[in-house]
């Protein structure tokens, strides 16, 4: 079964590739291979923030990493530097509330820091 599926995927990928070349030759750009549009800074920033968060979660624990993540995400969504301290306050409140709800109420085991703080 994996062989059949992979062969089909290979065949269809070739079809898409050829189709894009043929359409390019015809002068139209109806189906470009990669369609990039819009403002990419924010999505890239968010992905970077989430990737760093994943790497540091088990090191610094839920409270510390999530606090920084939420503050950073708020900043990414609305980069208004005048109110940066507001983001830190909102981040702290959100993380504390989420910790209470998930850890205490739903009994979810959230990751603990290697230093024993900020679980």
């Amino acid at each position, binding site marked *: 079964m994996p062989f059949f599926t992979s062969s089909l995927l290979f065949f269809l990928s070739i079809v898409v590739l050829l189709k894009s070349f043929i359409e390019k030759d015809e002068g139209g750009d109806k189906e470009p291979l990669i369609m990039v549009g819009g403002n990419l800074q924010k999505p890239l920033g*968010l992905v970077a923030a989430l990737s760093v968060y*994943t790497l540091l979660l088990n090191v610094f624990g839920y409270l510390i990493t999530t606090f920084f993540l939420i503050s950073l995400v*708020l900043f990414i*969504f609305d980069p208004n530097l005048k109110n940066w301290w507001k983001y830190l306050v909102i981040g702290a409140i959100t993380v504390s509330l989420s910790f209470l709800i998930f850890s205490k109420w739903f009994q*979810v085991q959230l*990751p603990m820091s290697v230093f024993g703080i900020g679980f």
Partner: protein
Amino acid sequence: MGVLESILLGFQVSLQPINLFYCFMGVLIGTLVGVLPGIGPIGAMAILLPTTYHAPPISSIIMLAGIYYGVQYGGSTTSILVNIPGEASSVVTCLDGYQMARQGRAGPALGIAAFGSFIAGTLGIVGLMMFAFPLARAALKFGPPEYFSLMVLGLILLSYLAQKSLVKAIIMATLGLILSYIGLDTVSGQVRFTLNITGLLEGIGIIPIVMGLFGIAEILENIEAVITRSIFKTHVKGLLPTIKDWADSIWAILRGTVLGFFLGILPGGGAVLASFAAYAVEKKLSKHPERFGKGAIEGVAGPESANNAATSGAFIPLMTLGIPSNVVMAMLFAGLLIHGLTPGPLLLKEHPDVFWGIVTSMYIGNVMLLILNLPLIRMWVQVLKIPFRFLFPLIILFCLVGVYSVNNSVLDIGLMIIFGVLGYIMRKCDYEPAPLVLAYVLGPMLEQAMRQSLKMSDGSFAIFLVRPISAGCLALCAFLLIMSIMAQVKRKAH
């Protein structure tokens, strides 16, 4: 057990306080998600799927189902008042609903959408009750070859109905199948496609996949541009439609219900297709088609009824054949499997309380939605004012904790982010994620059915062609593929 006894059993289950609570939570979240543009029913169900791990099985499925049909109600509010559909199945409601609002008739538009949805939802449940028994009985006669071909048909139909490109949709389906192979092969015990990562031995869970493809990807797409919403400044008054409104729309509601219900049953169909089809039918049958797009009440009543009836219809293949017909049903399917319940013809026999409990809860949920949507319409309008910059970080937080809580694994968070990025790129390149998820869910069953069939036939693929039902399904697949290729060739020639 007769139908009446079954219904009574269902109400006995669904009227339990805990189930009423979960049903209420489901429809409330559903309406909220429907009202808020940016996150659809699939994203919401994906985010909430991990919470069902800690809830009783019936209650969690009741909640997930509540989200699904609650979204259809909520979606109409934004379509009518803001001209932004809360989700895809409410797109056509914008055409006439918003025009009605501009003419000062927002109240009757919202009213007929809610009543139409209620009538359709209720009749849809009656249909579900009528069709479930005979289909489940017929499904018991199905062997592995029939199941295999039926699942292939489901995947092809979903790809055929894909809005963008058939080839790309099939690519997504094959990718979904390949993802389902990751981990230990249940028959031979062989390790497949794990890249030597121990965490992948049990395969990739559905939660990181759907949360990434629908939750994270949707957020990534939405933060690219600032979404501006201007709520139509009108007092929403007189929600009860007049007698003339009723006379104009009652047949549209009934037609929409029947059409939506049957389109919902079809694999790959669902609420979106149903609402578009109902609008087209109403416009065609109308004596004054020129009124459509300028505030015709039938243009709101028909599609809104159809999308609700489709949600009931979509339960039929899942509950009777054990095959999810669309991606929302695939999520419910995953929800049932998490709790050790296998949807299919035996579910009706072995767990009638689950089946009838869910069916009757939908009826109760429809009543709750009517109460939630009509008197509280002003509250939902206020919800529209919540800024996205506060909403999206909360959704991200919910996704992160939700995906982590399933296995206490950081790997799952990483996978979710990878699928989020993949989903974002897929949207940019016109690849739809729905066939991927459906194929991923069907993958293990498809492989098992194929292996069993080949064992039955000593390795001969002819078994799929000599059994009539299986051959019929495969013939239909071939027909659909040929039709699609012919249509493309014709388009090119023009």
